[in-house]
C-alpha cells in the first residue's frame, strides 16, 4: 500500500466524513487515493476557504474538521484558516503536500516551509519524512487536535512519502482524549467563595461548548441562580432568552452585562480567557471582584488576571463537582434584572432605511429552532451577537479571536454539509463577502441550501465607525461604493438573489429567504452611517460605554 492510500484509510478510521481541499502537484498521490475512498471531498475555490469550512464543520459538530492543500501557495493559502482555528481553539487537521524529501531545502518549485510558517498558529505539527511514521502521525494529529483545549494540527506530507510503498498498519485504536481531573481543594475553595459572595456573576466562555459541558453549566446556573454574562464565543451556553442571561459583555456588550461585571464582587469565569475585547482596559475590569477561573488550559489561568480560586481541568467534571446552594442574593439578582430591563434593545430606528438589528431580530424570531448562523466579521457580526437568539453555542459560528473577514460563507458550507436538513444562514457584510466570494460557486456545485443575508452599507462599516468616533471623522480607505452588484454576481454563479431596500419589505424578504429550497442571497441595503451600539472605546473600561450618539 502507498503512503497516500494509507493516509486516506487512516482518515476513514478516524471517522472523517468530509475533506475540504484543493488539489495540486505535491498532494496528487492523496487525491488519487481519495478516488477509492468513502470520504467526500469538497472542492472549494480557494484554499483559505478549505480551512475555514473545516473550521465551521468542527464548530457545528464538535468533530475534527479536515482540510487539505498542495505545497507552496496551496499551503500558504491555508494559513489564515489555520490561525483562525488556533485563536478559537477549534479542532482541525490540515494536511499539506510537500515537495519530495530529496528536493526539500533546495527552493524547489512550489516548495515552502509550511511547517515553519505555521509554528505559531498550530497546536502541534508534523513533517512526515519517513514513511514508517505515518500511522503514528495521523493518530497523534487527531488525538492532539481534540484533546484538552482543542486546536489545529498540521501534517506536512512530502510527495515521495505519499508514494512510498510499505506495510502500513492503523496505529492503535482511537483513544478518548484525556481530560484532567479538577483539584478537590480548588473546588472547595471556589464553593466557599461563592458562599461568601453577595454580587456574583458568571462569565461564560466558548470553552463550555467546546468541552461539551453545556448541560453541566446550565445545571450550575439553575442551582445557583447567579446572573450570567458571556463572551462572543460563550453565546448559547445558556439560551439567550433565559431570564438570568444579561447578554454579551465587553466592547459591544449589553449595558446590563457590563454594569454587572463591573459591580460584581465575585467573577466566576468558566472557559474564557479575559480577552481584551471582553474586558476592556484590564486594569479597570471588575476591580472589586474575587475570581474563580475554570479552564482546561492551565496556561490561560492567571495569564491576564490572577485567580483567587484557579480550577484547571475538564469543565464537565469541574461543574459537576462544584455543588453549591442557590445564591442568597435576591437584591443583586433584582439589580441585574433591572439593568437588563432598563437597557433592553430599542428597535425604533430613526433612519428611514432598514435597521439591521431589527432585520436580525425578526429573522431570529422566524427561523426554525435548529438554525445555524455563520457570521463574517464586522458590524453585522456584532449585531448578530446582540440581536439573534441562540439556544446552543454550536448554532453561532463566529470568528472571535482572529476576526477573519471571509469566515462566514465557508463556515456555513462546513455546517450545512454536516447538517443537510438544518437551516444555515450566513450573515455577511459587503466587505467580508468579497473576501471569499468565490465560494458561491462551491454552494452551487454541491447545491447547499445556505441562506445568505448580505448587509451592504457600501463601506467597511466597523472601521468607518471607529474612524468616525475615534479618529475625528477622518475616513481612510473605507468607502466601498464601487462594490459590484451582488445580486447579479450571485446569479452569475447560479445563486438566486434579491435586493431589499426598504423596511416595509423586511417580512417579505425573510419569507423569501426561508422559503427558498436551495441557496439564496438576500442583498440587504442599509444605511452607510449605521453604527454598533453600545461601544467601549479603546483604552476604556467596560463602565465607559458610548451609546447611540449620531444615528
Amino acid at each position: 500500500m502507498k503512503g497516500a492510500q494509507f493516509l486516506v484509510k487512516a482518515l476513514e478510521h478516524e471517522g472523517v466524513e468530509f475533506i475540504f481541499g484543493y488539489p495540486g502537484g505535491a498532494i496528487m498521490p492523496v487525491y488519487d487515493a481519495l478516488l477509492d475512498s468513502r470520504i467526500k471531498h469538497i472542492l472549494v475555490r480557494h484554499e483559505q476557504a478549505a480551512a475555514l469550512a473545516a473550521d465551521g464543520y468542527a464548530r457545528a459538530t464538535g468533530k475534527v474538521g479536515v482540510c487539505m492543500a498542495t505545497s507552496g501557495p496551496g499551503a500558504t493559502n491555508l494559513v489564515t484558516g489555520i490561525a483562525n482555528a488556533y485563536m478559537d481553539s477549534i479542532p482541525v487537521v490540515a494536511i499539506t503536500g510537500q515537495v519530495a524529501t530529496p528536493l526539500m531545502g533546495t527552493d524547489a518549485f512550489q516548495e515552502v516551509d509550511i511547517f515553519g510558517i505555521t509554528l505559531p498558529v498550530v497546536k502541534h505539527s508534523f513533517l512526515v519524512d519517513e514513511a514508517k511514521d505515518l500511522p503514528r502521525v495521523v493518530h497523534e494529529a487527531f488525538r492532539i487536535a481534540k484533546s484538552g483545549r482543542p486546536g489545529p494540527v498540521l501534517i506536512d506530507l512530502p510527495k515521495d512519502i505519499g508514494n512510498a510503498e510499505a506495510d502500513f498498519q492503523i496505529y492503535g485504536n482511537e483513544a478518548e482524549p484525556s481530560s484532567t481531573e479538577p483539584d478537590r481543594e480548588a473546588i472547595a475553595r471556589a464553593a466557599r467563595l461563592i458562599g461568601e459572595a453577595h454580587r456574583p456573576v458568571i462569565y461564560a466562555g466558548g470553552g463550555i461548548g467546546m468541552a461539551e459541558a453545556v448541560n453541566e453549566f446550565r445545571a450550575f446556573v439553575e442551582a445557583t441562580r447567579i446572573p450570567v454574562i458571556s463572551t462572543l464565543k460563550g453565546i448559547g451556553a445558556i439560551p439567550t432568552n433565559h431570564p438570568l442571561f444579561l447578554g454579551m459583555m465587553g466592547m459591544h456588550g449589553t449595558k446590563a452585562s457590563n454594569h454587572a461585571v463591573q459591580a460584581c464582587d465575585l467573577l466566576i469565569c468558566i472557559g474564557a480567557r479575559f480577552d481584551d475585547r471582553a474586558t476592556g482596559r484590564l486594569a479597570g475590569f471588575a476591580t472589586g471582584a474575587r475570581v474563580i477561573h475554570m479552564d482546561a488550559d492551565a496556561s490561560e489561568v492567571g495569564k491576564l488576571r490572577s485567580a483567587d480560586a484557579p480550577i484547571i481541568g475538564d469543565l464537565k467534571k469541574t461543574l459537576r463537582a462544584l455543588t453549591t446552594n442557590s445564591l442568597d442574593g435576591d437584591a443583586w439578582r433584582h439589580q441585574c434584572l433591572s439593568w437588563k430591563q432598563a437597557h433592553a434593545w430599542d428597535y425604533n430606528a430613526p433612519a428611514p432605511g432598514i435597521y439591521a438589528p431589527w432585520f436580525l431580530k425578526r429573522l431570529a424570531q422566524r427561523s426554525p429552532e435548529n438554525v445555524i448562523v455563520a457570521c463574517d466579521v464586522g458590524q453585522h457580526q456584532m449585531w448578530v451577537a446582540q440581536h439573534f437568539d441562540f439556544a446552543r453555542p454550536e448554532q453561532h459560528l463566529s470568528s472571535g479571536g482572529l476576526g477573519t473577514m471571509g469566515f462566514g460563507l465557508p463556515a456555513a458550507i462546513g455546517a450545512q454539509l454536516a447538517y443537510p436538513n438544518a437551516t444555515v444562514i450566513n450573515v455577511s457584510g459587503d466587505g467580508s463577502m468579497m473576501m471569499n466570494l468565490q465560494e458561491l460557486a462551491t454552494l452551487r456545485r454541491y447545491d447547499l441550501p445556505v441562506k445568505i443575508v448580505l448587509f451592504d452599507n457600501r463601506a467597511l462599516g466597523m472601521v468607518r465607525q471607529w474612524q468616525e468616533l475615534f479618529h475625528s471623522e477622518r475616513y481612510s480607505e473605507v468607502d466601498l461604493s464601487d462594490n459590484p452588484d451582488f445580486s447579479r454576481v450571485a446569479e452569475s454563479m447560479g445563486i438566486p438573489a434579491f435586493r431589499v431596500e426598504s423596511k416595509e419589505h423586511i417580512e417579505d424578504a425573510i419569507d423569501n429567504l426561508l422559503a427558498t429550497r436551495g441557496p439564496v442571497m438576500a442583498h440587504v441595503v442599509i444605511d452607510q452611517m449605521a453604527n454598533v451600539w453600545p461601544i467601549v472605546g479603546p483604552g476604556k473600561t467596560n463602565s465607559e460605554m458610548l451609546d447611540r450618539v449620531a444615528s
Partner: protein
Amino acid sequence: MSTLTLQLRVKNEEGALLRVLSMTRRRRFDLLSVNADSSADGRFMDVRMTVKAERSAPAFVRQIEKLEDVTQVEVLDSAGESSAHAAG
C-alpha cells in the same frame, strides 16, 4: 524585569527546539542564553535557557509546559534548586 532559568527535556522531534524558542519570542520574553544537548540515546534534548521579561513567569512556564514536545520543565532558582513539572 526578572530573569528566569528553565531546564527542559524536549523530544528530539522535527522543529521541537524551534517551537520552544518561537513560544519564547511570541510571549515577549527575551532570550538571554540557551544551550541544547542531545540525550545519550538521541531521543531527547536537554535545554537550559535563561529569559527575562516583565510578564508573569508562571504563565510563561505553563505555556512552555503545554508544548507537545516538552516532557519536563524545571524552574531553577537563583540557588540552583529546581522544581520539576510534568509537561507535554
